[in-house]
């Protein structure tokens, strides 16, 4: 297994071969349970790919690995030409780097405490504090150079969900996870978090940049709401929206980060046929208008067969079939997984 070097720019387009996402040998164990076993998976740029399988097949686990929520036990995910996800190694060492200057300083103080003059100790304490502050700030802010340096000293960290969003991945959840007590507009603004640059200092001093950005962001957010069909609902609290609108709002929120790849976890669950049809239209429209690539987990076979370019079938954590919708539908293994083995 190659070492994961999150943050390393891996490959040009020729190597990725038009693949937006490339997962290689993904395995995830929870204790003794193998939730996902050795899955290779690719998503070509611009396509709609579906992931199906019976309940408990490991779809959502796999999804969560790609989204950076779980670290895989083994395997690597390359996203947008960047190696993003793999098993973290020695990540627990990292906080020691932050606290090392303070620790060394404290040890120095303790050793010289008996001999030094008291006012010197105050100075020494001040220097220690400054050193501690600077390293801690580096650890908290994590500038790119620091992140690139970590693998060189043997610390490998898998991408976290927010790193994946930063790299261009947006997602929705199987059971809607909106910010219930925030308005629709605020939900989308939270989704745009990575695209806004204003810091807490900007906000505190109300810099022109901050004011301009807030104004523009609200406009853009209203645009996303219109795109998913929630025109004029920006002031409504998320929890007061009807179910179908909540699903749409979750998509609008995911769009806020301008993703290249959109992960949709059962977007039509609990919808009536009409709402389902609207959702299919919306997904196709997103692909066409925003050039999105979509990965879909879905139970509704009609939806899957209608919009997918490729379908991957999981069962018991293993990939049992892959291909165009027509190929998958005819695959005897898939039929067996869904309907049980034929009686001999």
């Amino acid at each position, binding site marked *: 297994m190659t070492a994961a070097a999150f943050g390393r720019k891996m490959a040009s387009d020729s190597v990725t071969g038009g693949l937006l996402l490339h997962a290689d040998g993904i395995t995830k164990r929870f204790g003794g349970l193998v939730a996902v076993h050795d899955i290779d998976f690719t998503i070509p740029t611009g396509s709609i790919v579906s992931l199906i399988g019976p309940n408990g097949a490991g779809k959502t686990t796999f999804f969560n690995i790609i989204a950076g929520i779980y670290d895989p036990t083994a395997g690597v995910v390359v996203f947008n030409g960047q190696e993003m996800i793999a098993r973290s190694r020695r990540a627990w060492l990292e906080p020691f780097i932050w606290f090392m200057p303070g620790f060394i300083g404290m040890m120095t103080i303790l050793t010289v405490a008996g001999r030094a003059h*008291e006012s010197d100790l105050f100075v020494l304490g001040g220097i220690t504090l400054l050193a*501690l502050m600077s390293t801690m700030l580096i650890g908290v802010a994590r500038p790119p150079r620091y992140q690139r340096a970590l693998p060189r000293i043997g610390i490998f960290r898998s991408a976290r969900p927010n790193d994946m969003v930063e790299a261009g991945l947006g997602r929705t*959840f199987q059971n809607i*996870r909106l*910010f219930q007590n925030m308005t629709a507009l*605020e939900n989308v603004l*939270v989704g745009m*978090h*990575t695209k806004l640059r204003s810091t807490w200092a900007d*906000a505190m001093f109300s810099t022109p940049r901050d004011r301009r950005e807030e104004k523009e962001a609200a406009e853009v957010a209203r645009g996303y709401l219109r795109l998913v069909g929630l025109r004029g609902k920006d002031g409504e609290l998320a929890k007061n929206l009807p179910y179908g609108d909540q699903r749409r709002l979750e998509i609008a929120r995911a769009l806020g980060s301008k993703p290249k790849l959109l992960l949709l976890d059962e977007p039509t669950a609990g919808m009536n046929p009409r709402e389902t049809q609207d959702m299919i239209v919306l997904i196709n429209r997103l692909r066409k208008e925003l050039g999105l690539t979509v990965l879909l987990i879905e139970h509704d076979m009609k939806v899957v067969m209608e919009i997918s370019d490729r379908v991957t079938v999981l069962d018991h954590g293993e990939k049992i079939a892959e291909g165009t919708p027509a190929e998958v539908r005819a695959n005897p293994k898939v039929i067996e997984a869904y309907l049980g083995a034929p009686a001999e």
Partner: protein
Amino acid sequence: MSAAPAVEMEKSGKIKAPNGTRLRGWRGRISEFAHKHRSWTIVIGMAIGSVVLYFWSAYPPFSFVQTQNTWISGFVNAGVFILLALGLNIVVGFAGLLDLGYAAFFAFGAYLYAFGASPFSHLHLPFLLLLVGGAVVAAVFGIALGAPTLRLRGDYLAIVTLGFGEIVPIVFLNAEKYTQGTNGIGGVDRPNIFGFQFPGIDQTAYYVLMSIVVAIVMILVYRLLDSRIGRAWAAIREDELAAAANGINTVTTKLAAFALGATTAGFAGVLNASKLTIVDPTQFMFQVSFVVLAMIVLGGMGNPFGVAVGAFILYNIQAVLLKQLNAVMENLHVPILQDIDFVKFQFLLFGIALVLMMMFRPEGLIPSQRRRQELHAADAESSEDLALVAPDAGDVSL
């Protein structure tokens, strides 16, 4: 600060008026102004409130209780608690991280001032430098405490912060060589700002300084609330996983809350030390964290204005009203009532007040809009359920 609540209640109360409802006349005009120019509203409200309270405290009913200077001194102390409450509100009210060790940061600010400007350390650094320095040191310790607790949630976070809050005063207590232990560091310099030396007895200068600092902090906190980071805090409070899945770096965002909350406590610590001119570990015991938390719960968690009002009211109850009750009871000449010492019972009374508050108005006196929605979600849902279920049941029976 201390003064603002009385007057500002009129104004800021209306900032929260739900959009779309328009008030007519002068009230409407004030409301519109407050909505558009919030920072100016705070400045004007604080200025009017502070001036009114300053002069009024020399006349009835204030003058029945104590002298003007005692009132002013009390208002300055209340200002310290308002600062603490505003800071803790960032951590608990905005980001939803329950911090029970908040007094520790107050201690760092106070001790930094004592180290920087007292005969004990033979240093007499300028006040404004130490004011900033105290805030920065408190912020660093805020991050240092925040970093190991990031993975913890709810109860566990509360326990760790509680431990931190207990450890800090004890360290200051036991490091006798550097802090003079229980005696504390005395004779701390009074502030000297650009050549103006603060007098010892007349508290007016402290009052003015405190009003300015509280107004500034209030403005900054309100600005944080509606900013990108304010939304990120609200998102983390509601659903941390969803927040992370929307690109919010939960680590830095939570640390920012800890650091900014601690900064405010650092200011409060420096101001408190410079006013009392003595810093000792008993000023930073767990009771302080508890009282400040009670203040923000009472005032309305998440709403800076409500929190400031809560702190002002609770401080004055604690410092003035309970003592007055004692005096009143003593004058009654009824044996049993004479024996009641309300000051000693203050924590019992706080406890009862909190229980009643949680039962009847969990969102606080002047709640933030969002908190109110969260807390009353259950009521709304259950009534909606009833509305949905009732007709269905009818259909079935038909």
